[in-house]
């Protein structure tokens, strides 16, 4: 039902209907934002990830063809966008080093010592999740951030429950290996 509503909106968007686009954005923003936040851990960056995906969707609306469900498409897009962001952030930029000064320090306030452990785990966990293989990471995040059942993930991505199960197992195995040194 929801899915067919999305599809109606998309056919309107292809013809340039901005109101339909607004509807689609608003219908999915909160969940997608929470999802991107789960990966990135920063609200405004998470919002920008969602923005980027929707801006691109709008810019390319004429060529829009969604073979799977819209939900699957949009989550995958936000997932990949966020992962790419995290990768590019990891590649430390030169100019940051150039500008290493008082400002840089003041921008990155250190977490209080008491919270260190949890903060450390959270940070490492995000990093580890972002390094999961694509499909594996997407399935894991849909399960954990969206609280979806295996059945729902399978339906959304058009794969079997067995695959979801296998990928979840794989994800946890990798995460444990990375986090428990």
């Amino acid at each position, binding site marked *: 039902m929801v899915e067919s509503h999305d599809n109606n909106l998309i056919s309107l968007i292809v013809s340039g209907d901005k109101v339909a686009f607004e509807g689609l954005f608003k219908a999915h*923003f909160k969940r997608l934002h929470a999802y991107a936040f789960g990966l990135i851990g920063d609200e405004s960056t998470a919002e920008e990830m969602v923005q980027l995906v929707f801006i691109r969707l709008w810019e390319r609306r004429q060529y829009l063809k969604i073979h799977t469900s819209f939900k699957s498409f949009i989550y995958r897009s936000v997932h990949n966008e966020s992962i790419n962001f995290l990768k590019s952030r990891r590649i430390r930029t030169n100019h940051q080093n150039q500008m290493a000064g008082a*400002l840089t320090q003041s921008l990155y306030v250190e977490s209080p010592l008491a919270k260190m452990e949890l903060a450390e785990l959270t940070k490492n966990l995000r990093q580890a999740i972002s390094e999961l293989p694509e499909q594996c990471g997407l399935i894991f995040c849909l399960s954990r951030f969206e609280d979806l059942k295996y059945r729902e993930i399978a339906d959304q991505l058009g794969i079997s429950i067995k695959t979801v199960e296998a990928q979840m197992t794989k994800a946890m195995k990798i995460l444990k290996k990375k986090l428990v040194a």
Partner: protein
Amino acid sequence: MKEINNHIEELLVKFLSGEATAEEIMTLKKWASVSSENETTLAQYKTIWEAASNLSAKPETDEDAAWKRMQALLPDTEMSSTRRIYRYPWLQAAAIIILVISVSFLGYYRLFKIRGNKTPVVAQAPKTSISDTSLTFIVSGDQRKTDTLPDQSIVELNTHSTLTYADTLSVASHRFVELQGSAFFKVKHNVSRPFTVKAGRLLITVLGTSFYVKMPADTVEVSVETGIVAVTDEKNSVLLKAGESAILAGKGDLAYLSNGRDNGQHKTIGSLTGNVGKKYQKEPAFDINQHPDLIRQLMQDPQKWASLLKNYSPGGNDIEFCRRIINNVLDDLENQGIIQRDNVRDFKLDGDAFIINGTRQPQDIFVAFKNKYIKEQGYVICLGDYKKTGKGVFLLRKDL
């Protein structure tokens, strides 16, 4: 042995996700009780699982506000995605003035005057009686300088750089600053107030993000640390996200670099334009004073300055505009008894002469028309089959 392990791992995950059967849970419990090592493994799995679930837990952001923020970044609805190119070289100059207008209408004279001057030494321009807006300069000497702007954005100026902003920055609906030199910006995220940096020929617009602008000699370089930044030169607009850079070298075109800053291995994805760039330098600066209709539009809807500018055309391709101007001229000619409008086959009015049907008009008529219609140097108003040169109004008789 490995076989068993795989099975247990599968069960662990099933158990955690609530998909395990009672039988499977029993098996797992039995396994956990065998050794403390197994118990620890179960605890570790649980910790990771729960930590992962908590990663996305956060206060919900209002989607209406989010939509408003995003709308500012969307290309114009009316424009197709391929037409994100600015037609008019002077638009970028116009934007400076407009942005200040949206702050204070009278104040723009001041910013306009300061542009292009050498780095001022004063910390603050004196206030004048006609305007309640004054400009603040942050000037760095031999040392870098870090400062917090009135809107709480942070700027770290590299040596010998200057940042200029109007004191209304903290309340302006569009935050605007001008940079000479290099700086790192950490822009305060704001719901609905875009932040624009003018750097040479570029306008860099952001919502709340950090990025670096460098202007060695004739080049402007923008690198994005976090967030999204729209970079606009006189013709193009490109969206940059984290890790990406754009470079505008000399009079050339805007080039886009992806993840380009490490090891100096820039990969230029592509230049986005043709070669209109050179023309810009010769064009006289766009003087918004000469375009009251644009000012009116902007005053009515200052938020939409970007699209208004993009679409504004003082006698370029906007046929309605051309018709209006030509008709005004023809009406004036008729009303002043110079010539019946239907008898005008063609005319050309520029800064040098007024020629109707091939006949040069007397000096007094020419001067009167010139003063009324020629808005700036090089502007031409033509009816008939004249070759289109430079800026102005060009209209064929049949299009009237």
